[in-house]
């Protein structure tokens, strides 16, 4: 049986609580520990809020489609928007710059954290963007055989 779920919501911050609850339940079904479930929920939330803020610029009533695929050893989540094509090169550079900034613990400023969180949490992160189909963000997280501590150990490597 395919264990797959599509959710379509208007791109509005109010809907995020609903998305979190669904993704959290999906993570539980796959068998993630509480810590990893929380982290995956956070990554999906950040992906959606980035769409709302940067792609729909806080004002469009366009939808977001979230596809969740459950596997024995992992969860795959695809976020799809219906906006303009985005410059993935620029996105990557921007994230790299912010990451270096945070590593150096330079002057603290708000913002620029969402993509870093997604990147730190998920095992695979892939963006695909086109003028015709908008942007798809694919994220994969494997169930840690060691259970607890996976996220923390990964980011302090």
């Amino acid at each position, binding site marked *: 049986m395919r264990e797959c779920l599509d959710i379509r919501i208007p791109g509005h*911050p*109010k809907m*995020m*609580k609903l998305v*979190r609850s669904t993704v959290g339940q999906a993570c539980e079904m796959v068998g993630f520990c*509480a*810590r990893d479930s*929380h*982290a995956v*929920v*956070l990554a999906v*939330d*950040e992906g959606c*809020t980035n769409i*709302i*803020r940067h792609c729909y610029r806080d004002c469009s009533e366009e939808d977001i489609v979230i596809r969740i695929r459950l596997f024995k050893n992992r969860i795959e989540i695809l976020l799809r928007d219906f906006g303009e094509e985005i410059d993935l090169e620029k996105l990557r550079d921007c994230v790299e710059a912010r990451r270096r900034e*945070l*590593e150096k*613990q330079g002057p*603290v*400023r*708000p*913002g620029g*954290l*969402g993509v*870093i*969180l997604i990147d*730190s*949490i998920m095992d695979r992160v892939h963006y695909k963007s086109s003028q015709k189909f908008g942007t798809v963000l694919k994220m994969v997280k494997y169930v840690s055989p060691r259970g607890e501590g996976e*996220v*923390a150990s990964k*980011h302090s490597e």
Partner: protein
Amino acid sequence: MQVSTQNRNKGAVISVSGDIDLYTSPDLRKEIAKLAKKKKNPLVVDLEQVDYMDSSGVATLVEGLQLTGRYEGSFRVASLNDGVREVFELARLDKVFDVYDNLDQALAGF
């Protein structure tokens, strides 16, 4: 999310409950800005009743740090649960904040 504030001498404690996300963080931002304008010192944000916080919440707290920094006020966060603590760690900002295990410790001396 719900926000309630108590004044304590020259300082103030903002107690937050519920989820801090893109939908709710503007309310917290407003409250922090209001108290920073009054130069409250220390400004303590009690997160004991917060189950979930995303990067917009973290950004809001970073702003609080900047605003209080302008008048050399102390900005403190108290009672982080596991999920909230992890967001700070993942964003590599756990060392940037004055984090207290509980409200009493955050208020010690005030």
